[in-house]
């Protein structure tokens, strides 16, 4: 069998394969490392970090829906200081590419986080969460405002040479305009998409299933939406796209790559099968071999419309 090249580049970030584990679905790597060999994945993206710890939303935080789930965790995280003191030492040892996701409630907080983390060798890139739908003071407010997203990118760009990936919200009319804006401000890539805002009610108590009332919808249910957003960006904007949203198999991953994604992230599927990433990587390899594709980069945006 001929060797297939699975390695990809996102800006200056080189990955051994295009399969990453999405922020919020791998914690800081420790728990999942007991189940899956993290050295095999392209990268792991850590749970959103904010400057100060966030305890997160009260229960109920999750609700299963048809082929998906709603979550409103509320960016529960240990804060920047404990992340550096307690989690970085572990991440240094696992021998995989680490991308640090940052979520903040103000422009200053984003800048402060990137400044504090930029010199940590283990962190190879930053993914900027401008689109969490579950916190009141930030997230979606930024994610829906193209000027805010533009400003965050231009603020962070001069702070670090490391690749900057902006994670975009699907809860907007035209995602390609956001991709264009962050490209103009020097972002290296975009991740598309974050979760879709949704809700569910208990018809007997007439109360929302989630304490936060609304949550972010993820899982296979959102895959067609995510795929359309990836295609939309890929057709109009010359920026690497990292496809994320409902990927549960190697076939899904291949579909995103064909639609224009240079790499993919696996999210909710990690909850159901923590070993899914290994299966996706092997599946992509076999698929490329069977399709006579020697370099997976040749598959990117290879659609015929």
């Amino acid at each position: 069998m001929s060797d297939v090249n699975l390695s990809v580049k996102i800006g200056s970030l080189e990955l051994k394969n295009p399969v990453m584990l999405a922020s919020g679905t791998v914690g800081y790597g420790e728990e999942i490392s007991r189940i899956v060999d993290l050295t095999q994945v392209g990268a792991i993206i850590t749970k959103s970090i904010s400057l100060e710890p966030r305890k997160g939303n009260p229960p109920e935080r999750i609700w299963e829906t048809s082929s998906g789930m709603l979550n409103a965790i509320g960016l529960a995280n240990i804060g920047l200081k404990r992340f550096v003191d307690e989690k970085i030492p572990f991440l240094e040892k696992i021998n995989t590419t680490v991308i640090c996701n940052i979520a903040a409630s103000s422009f200053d907080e984003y800048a402060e986080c990137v400044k504090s983390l930029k010199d940590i060798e283990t962190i190879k890139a930053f993914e900027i969460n401008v689109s969490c739908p579950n916190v009141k003071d930030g997230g979606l407010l930024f994610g829906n405002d193209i000027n805010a997203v533009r400003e965050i990118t231009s603020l962070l760009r001069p702070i670090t040479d490391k690749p900057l990936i902006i994670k975009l919200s699907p809860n907007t009319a035209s995602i390609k305009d956001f991709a264009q804006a962050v490209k103009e401000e020097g972002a290296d890539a975009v991740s598309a998409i974050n979760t879709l805002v949704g809700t569910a009610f208990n018809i007997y108590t007439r109360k929302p299933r989630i304490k936060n009332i609304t949550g972010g919808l993820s899982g296979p249910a959102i895959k067609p939406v995510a795929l359309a957003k990836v295609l939309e960006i890929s057709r109009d904007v010359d920026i690497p796209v990292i496809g994320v949203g409902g990927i549960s198999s190697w076939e899904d991953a291949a579909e995103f790559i064909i639609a224009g994604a240079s790499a993919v992230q696996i999210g909710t599927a990690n909850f159901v099968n923590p070993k899914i990433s290994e299966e996706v990587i092997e599946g992509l390899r076999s698929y490329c071999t069977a399709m006579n594709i020697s370099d997976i980069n040749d598959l990117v945006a290879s659609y015929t419309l």
Partner: protein
Amino acid sequence: MSVCIDNCEVIENSQVAENIYFLKTVAPNIAREVYPGQFCNILVSDYGTPLLRRPFSVAFREKNIIGFLYDIVGMGTELLSKVDVGEKISIEGPLGNGFNIDGSLEVALLLGGGIGIAPLPFLREKLQKRGINTLTFWGSKTSGKLNLSLFDNIYFATDDGSEGFQGNVVESVGNLWSSISHANLKAYACGPTPMLIAAQNFFQEKNVPLEISVESRMACGFGICQGCPIKSADSDEYKLVCKDGPVFNSKEVVL
């Protein structure tokens, strides 16, 4: 500690009481590691609907076999009840922290409410092996004729008095308190939240240590999704039921 995800053959999946099923599977890797109070995440459909695994306490272990007790509450457990003997199901585990058995323990009280009985047979077996005198109390709405030897020697409490003590399971313990009170006593409880609160209050007043096994909806079951918070008693933070529990010292958490 490692977590396994194995395809396990079902060797029994039968109804043992009204709305209670007993599932036995061959799961050598999990059986080797698991201890009472831990749980497993079972994939109930290979086709993505429902999407998430379902968490179940381990009720039984014998050599390479583990067993679960469950009731039918929705699509997931209904599908599980239809799995035939000989089929294989994906089981992830063991997960979470189980019950603690202190060295000085001489008498253990086990309290189950409804399907909260699930983790207790496995715990009882371990306690009895250590020579600890164990009394098991089970409360349910109405008569619970259980055709399972796991449930021998149980004090029943039923809301309607159709079997055993009439009242709730905590009241049934109170009813016998003068004969079971003991210096090196510990209580273990699993069941619906109101029952756990009643148990907390009762044993706190008696100054008897209590461990509780708590239920929550979960997505991942091992700490990465953070979907199962429970309020910590000693700080303004949340603990996670899956990773920090599901068994807690009753003074650690606010129900």
